[in-house]
């Protein structure tokens, strides 16, 4: 069987109820890249966090909206694009708090973006408030780096 490649798009109603479905799809899809189980879980988690933010923050739990996740697979990288048409926000203006501080302030949130940053190799956010916001998550494939080492 050839390596899986191309663009895969999933659109579901904006409800936390559909997070499990999104994870199931993303997990099944990227398992086919040959990444190990722990990597698959972490990437799936990053997508979960991004979609959760769209559902809870961008759309304020308005179920009539849709969450869109686009996955691009090739030999070099896995790229996710999570799109929303909500208000958008400026992640550069957002400074994640330290865990100690969140604990001291009894916060239940504030961990999602940090998890995404920890897991992904590259995180970019393009926003046009009210039109289209898109969070770009990139993971470079190690096997590709190895191959290049061997090539040289």
């Amino acid at each position, binding site marked *: 069987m050839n390596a899986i490649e191309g663009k895969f798009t999933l659109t579901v109603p904006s409800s936390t109820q559909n997070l499990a479905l999104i994870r199931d799809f993303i997990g099944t899809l990227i398992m086919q890249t040959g990444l190990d189980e722990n990597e698959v879980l972490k990437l799936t988690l990053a997508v979960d966090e991004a979609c959760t933010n769209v559902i809870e923050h961008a759309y304020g739990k308005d179920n009539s909206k849709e969450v869109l996740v686009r996955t691009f697979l090739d030999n070099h990288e896995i790229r996710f694009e999570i799109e929303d048409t909500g208000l958008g926000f400026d992640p550069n203006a957002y400074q994640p708090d330290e865990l100690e501080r969140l604990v001291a302030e009894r916060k*239940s949130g504030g*961990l999602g973006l940090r998890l995404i940053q*920890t897991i992904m190799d590259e995180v970019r956010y393009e926003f046009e408030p009210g039109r289209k916001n898109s969070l770009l998550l990139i993971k470079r494939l190690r096997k590709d780096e190895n191959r290049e080492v061997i090539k040289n």
Partner: protein
Amino acid sequence: MPQPFSLQVSQQAGASLISIGGHLDAHTAPEFETAIQTAVDGGQFQVIVDCTNLSYISSAGLGVFMSFIEEVREQGGDIKICGLVPKVRQVFDLLGFPDIFDLVDDVAAAVQRFAESPTRKG
């Protein structure tokens, strides 16, 4: 759904034992939050969360632990977390949770830990 969330509450050696299973995410975290809130509201500050059957956790689930830990410790109690499978443990590790939370092997170890060290400073 694959891996729905499950939650049972019982008593264990004077502590409240909350056993969770399946997927703990932004959809299921409120149910978990309610269970801890109920314990705390009832004056129960010794909480054991058994994660043996938990197969997935996202930040929404971790946030529940985070939001209660100060309160129970202030009251001389703690949340002892046990039974983490490696996949779930990995997510705790990613966020540095082991520095703050008391993670133990199983329910017996959690009970033991409450006897030795009922609370812990964050």
